[in-house]
């Protein structure tokens, strides 16, 4: 028995005013990403001992640029995109209008946050990297700006929750349409995950940067609060990509989503397991007992499981589509996938690269091996294949139908769009090969290698590959911006997709049985909070009160 992932597959129109603001919310992310990739290029080339920073009009400092690269690419771009994408998916899935004031508020909060953060970074008052480790201190506008960006995500979630609640009131006893369910769960997880960083910024860093607490801060506590949010944040970036892989890509590839219940289970597992894993970023930190780190290590292996399930599900959905198009054989069907569709191609390449991202992630989580690679270029090698490709290239693929859908203009050049994704993918594989191999030889991340006073001949090959791969990644994304820019300005009016790609499921949701309880998000939030208390409670109980011992330093 099959069913649709949305309530009304025959069509529902999103009002033009909402489309406009959702579009502009996403454009803020694109603006950030354009700035971010120039510094990505500069960073990658610096590992090949080439310095292009003196040619930049502004932001010529290496660590200033690295701060801009991190903040723009993983904080602004990802959340701007999700702030547009997830509410759109929820509204369409439930065939319900979003709350207008919250659509506008989300845009406004994001815009204000960006103005503040850009001011702080451009004036070189916040070269502390996106990790913001105290006692390196930034100007207060940097911290307040980042809080506004988080508030914009809360506005987007509130909007989705209100729409979901209204829908439920009118549909008592019905299962929540799958696309809406997974979109809401993605941001519910992020909301819970964002609370520790809210405490860090609002409770400690902002008052400290304004001179409160005698100008003192606790370095270990603030760092721990950062990573309390900081691992779950990677799933906040990833889950919107999973929403597309599960609920949209099957339709785009002519296939079916395999299992409704398993998809819901996967998202609930991410809700429960994403957050209590942060200590695996702090394996080499003093002040956190080894046993507590081991608990987080085991849970990190646990959160790998729903990703394994995803790998089966999305490949099965693609295979159904390929076989319907005449695909045969054990692997020959792959040739029958829609490789001429830039939206699907980008996302399939994202999935393929994610295999390597996942495996290197397991190695990071293995604490015996972590000591070899912690803070080496291995780590950015890993995460450019996860957030840098699995997430970013999926968002690129989604944009290839969503920007036409939101603007009412057809995609400008299919060929250039396809080329963009392939060039980027080849680039990231070369880049990651370089960073990972040099990382195994001990090349540190976050290092201005051009001016470093030490080096190692074993880093040469890895450094050169990093530079070559990074250049290809830059070209790939530059082409993406050409395609999107020309679509917005020159795309043919009226030839855009009229609806989102709505998938159907092979195994429909059941109306009886235990999996109905998957829809009770509140219940699963309680389970999540309980597990977080078990994983983080002992640390805080044995550590608090805060040690306010460090004055702020501005060493940049």
């Amino acid at each position, binding site marked *: 028995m099959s069913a649709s992932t949305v309530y009304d597959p025959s069509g529902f129109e999103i009002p033009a005013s909402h489309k406009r603001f959702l579009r502009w919310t996403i454009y803020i992310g694109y603006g950030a990403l354009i700035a971010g990739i120039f510094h990505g290029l500069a960073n990658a080339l610096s590992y090949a001992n080439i310095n292009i920073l003196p040619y930049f009009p502004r932001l010529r400092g290496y660590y200033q640029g690295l701060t801009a690269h991190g903040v723009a690419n993983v904080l602004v771009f990802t959340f701007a995109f999700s702030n547009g994408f997830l509410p759109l998916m929820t509204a369409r899935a439930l065939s319900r209008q979003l709350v207008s004031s919250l659509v506008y508020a989300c845009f406004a909060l994001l815009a204000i946050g960006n103005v503040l953060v850009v001011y702080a970074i451009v004036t070189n008052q916040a070269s502390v990297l996106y990790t913001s480790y105290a006692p390196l201190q930034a100007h207060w506008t940097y911290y307040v700006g980042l809080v506004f960006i988080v508030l914009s995500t809360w506005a987007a979630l509130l909007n989705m929750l209100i729409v979901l609640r209204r829908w439920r009131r009118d549909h008592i006893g019905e299962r929540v349409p799958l696309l809406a369910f997974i979109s809401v769960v993605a941001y519910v997880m992020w909301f819970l995950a964002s609370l520790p960083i809210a405490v860090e910024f609002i409770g400690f860093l902002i008052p400290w940067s304004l001179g409160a607490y005698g100008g003192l801060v606790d370095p270990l506590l603030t760092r721990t609060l950062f990573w309390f949010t900081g691992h779950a944040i990677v799933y906040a970036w990833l889950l919107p990509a999973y929403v597309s892989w599960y609920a949209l890509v099957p339709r785009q590839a002519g296939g079916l989503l395999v299992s409704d219940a398993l998809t819901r289970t996967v998202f609930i597992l991410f809700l429960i397991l994403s957050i209590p894993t942060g200590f695996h970023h702090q394996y080499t930190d003093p002040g956190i007992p080894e046993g507590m780190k081991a608990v987080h290590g085991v849970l990190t292996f646990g959160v790998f499981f729903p990703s394994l399930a995803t790998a089966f599900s999305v490949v099965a959905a693609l295979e159904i589509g390929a076989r319907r198009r005449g695909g045969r054989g054990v692997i020959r069907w792959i040739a029958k996938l829609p490789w001429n569709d830039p939206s699907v191609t980008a996302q399939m390449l994202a999935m393929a690269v994610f295999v390597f991202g996942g495996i290197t992630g397991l190695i990071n989580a*293995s604490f015996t091996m972590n*000591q070899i690679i912690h803070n080496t270029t291995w780590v950015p090698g890993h995460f450019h294949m996860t957030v840098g490709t699995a997430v970013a290239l999926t968002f690129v693929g989604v944009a290839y139908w969503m920007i036409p859908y939101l603007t009412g203009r057809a995609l400008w050049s299919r060929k250039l769009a396809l080329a963009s994704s392939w060039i980027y993918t080849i680039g990231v594989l070369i880049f990651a090969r370089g960073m990972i191999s040099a990382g195994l030889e001990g090349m540190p991340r976050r*290092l201005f290698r051009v001016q470093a006073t030490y080096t190692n001949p074993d880093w040469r090959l890895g450094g050169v590959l990093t530079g070559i791969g990074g250049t290809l990644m830059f070209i790939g994304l530059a082409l993406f911006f050409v395609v999107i820019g020309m679509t917005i300005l020159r795309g043919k009016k009226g030839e855009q997709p009229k609806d989102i790609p709505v998938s159907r499921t092979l195994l429909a949701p059941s109306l009886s049985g235990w999996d109905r309880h998957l829809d009770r998000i509140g219940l699963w939030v309680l389970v999540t909070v309980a597990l977080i208390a078990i994983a983080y409670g002992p640390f805080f109980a044995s550590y608090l009160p805060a040690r306010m011992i460090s004055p702020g330093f501005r060493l940049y």
Partner: protein
Amino acid sequence: MKIETYEKAYLWLGGLTLLACLVVLLYSSVAMDIHLPGRAGEVDPKLLASTPPFDQPGVRQVGPNKYEAVLIGRAWSFNPPEIRVPVGAEVTFIGTSQDVIHGFFIEGTRVNIMLIPGQIATATHTFREPGEYTVICHEYCGIGHHTMFGKVIAE
């Protein structure tokens, strides 16, 4: 909840593989005695000059073939910049930071710890090969971060 047969088999296989990786990991930690830094005490970063052992950074013998190397990270150097230890001796590095967060990573070894103001970090290592090992600060610590390094000489 109905799950397709192939999917069920795949999930079991994947789950058991993860479990096997985890068992190997825990075994390697116990059997090969690979440990992470834990709680090794606290120190006020403003009072390092008068707080033992940080009032006297350097190497000292603490037992037969056992040494301690006390070090402080600061922007942008290690104190002492050079640590000399005997080959084959068990060396415990005891470090902290006097300003911002630094890293202490000895190339080619598993000595990889964060130096966090207020916290005492420890790592133990035995150098089997004589030679000069570069010590790298691998945490961003300001505009001169890429000039912060030191040496361990095993002889």
